[in-house]
């Protein structure tokens, strides 16, 4: 009975019922399938593009890293760390200053550590008193500032002797140093290129005065056994 009723009703209103059912079906498909899938598709497209870009970037980075010679990098690191060390390098600095002053005809009469360095960077101060000819003082100052170890002349004090060209120069020098930074780049961070100018700078540093650490022999002072 019920079925017959339905058939009758459908036959009577099929011009309305059929289009409504079709429209509802289409609407359901659009709302519950097409729109979410399309939205997911566009979202995934962006995500895919991001992953692809990141992968391409890493690909380039890997190529760049693989093209670098590790031994060459180690050598460059040694050169730059010698010029700008990670900690106070008293012995190297004493040796270097002795070498520079004697190379310019000066003799160090006193050397002490102290004073302020360059305020904005990590540095420590060295005060040297040296005796030598006035005519080569400019060369000495230049040698200090162009040496393979980063140093700045902060204060110059000169007193001349009454006779001759000899002077006593008191120089306050800042020796720069800085600890190795903690952040050495993440996987995503771009690889900074070493420019041609920087390569030349490293070559200039490497070609400077090399001061081997063994140059200064530390001789023990005082008794070998203080309780004797």
């Amino acid at each position, binding site marked *: 009975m019920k079925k017959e009723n339905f058939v009758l009703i459908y036959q009577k209103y099929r011009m309305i019922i059929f289009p409504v059912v079709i429209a509802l079906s289409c609407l359901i498909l659009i709302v519950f399938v*097409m729109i979410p899938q399309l939205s997911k*598709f566009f979202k995934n497209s962006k995500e895919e593009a991001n*992953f692809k870009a990141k992968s391409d970037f*890493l690909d380039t980075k890997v190529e760049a890293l693989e093209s670098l010679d*590790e031994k060459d*990098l180690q050598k460059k*690191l040694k050169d730059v760390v010698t010029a700008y060390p990670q900690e106070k390098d008293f012995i190297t600095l004493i040796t270097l200053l002795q070498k520079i002053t004697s190379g310019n005809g000066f003799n160090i009469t006193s050397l002490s550590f102290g004073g302020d360095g360059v305020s904005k960077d990590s540095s420590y101060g060295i005060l040297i008193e040296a005796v030598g000819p006035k005519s080569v003082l400019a060369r000495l100052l230049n040698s200090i500032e162009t040496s393979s170890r980063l140093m700045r002349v902060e204060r110059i004090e000169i007193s001349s002797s009454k006779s001759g060209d000899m002077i006593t120069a008191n120089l306050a020098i800042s020796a720069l140093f800085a600890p190795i930074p903690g952040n050495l*780049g993440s996987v995503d961070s771009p690889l900074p290129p070493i420019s041609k100018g920087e390569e030349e*700078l*490293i070559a200039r540093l490497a070609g400077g005065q090399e001061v081997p650490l063994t140059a200064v022999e530390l001789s023990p002072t005082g008794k070998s056994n203080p309780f004797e």
Partner: protein
Amino acid sequence: MNKKISINLLPVEYATEEIKKANFYKIQIFGIASVVIVTFLASLIVALGVLQSKNITEVKARLGENEEKVLQLKDRQALVFVIKNRLATINQYFGITSKQVAIYSMLNQLLPSGLNISSYTIDRSGEAVVVGVVSDGESVDNLIVGLTSKSEASDKISRVSIENLNRGRDGLYRISLKIQTK
């Protein structure tokens, strides 16, 4: 002249029913076609989504491989970072003359040979104090003129002041100059 006469003998109800049937047939065709098209589009989108998911998985796998390769080369990366970090500071100072040394060089050129310097101080701010001896008054004039009027001096020296000037029994002038630089 032959004239065709068309007479519809079917009942009006039958004709109306036929028109309704024809209309419903059109609606059925249109409706089914719509459902088929929408279903096809929905299937296409789902298929594209599946394909895209597959692509994303592949790209993710490649990304993972590349990340792994970068991690294997992290020592080289660290070396490059440290070198670059050091070079940034080295570039600021290496081969660049400090203000104090530049002032010393400049004053060396500007101070006349007649001035017998007994002491010379250039402090952190770049202020110079020169104490010296000159043989005559004209040399004192020349010294001041040289420090204040020469073009290379006017570019770098902002002020020259005589801190002390006296003439000894020996006829020599002892002069103390304070030179402030720009």
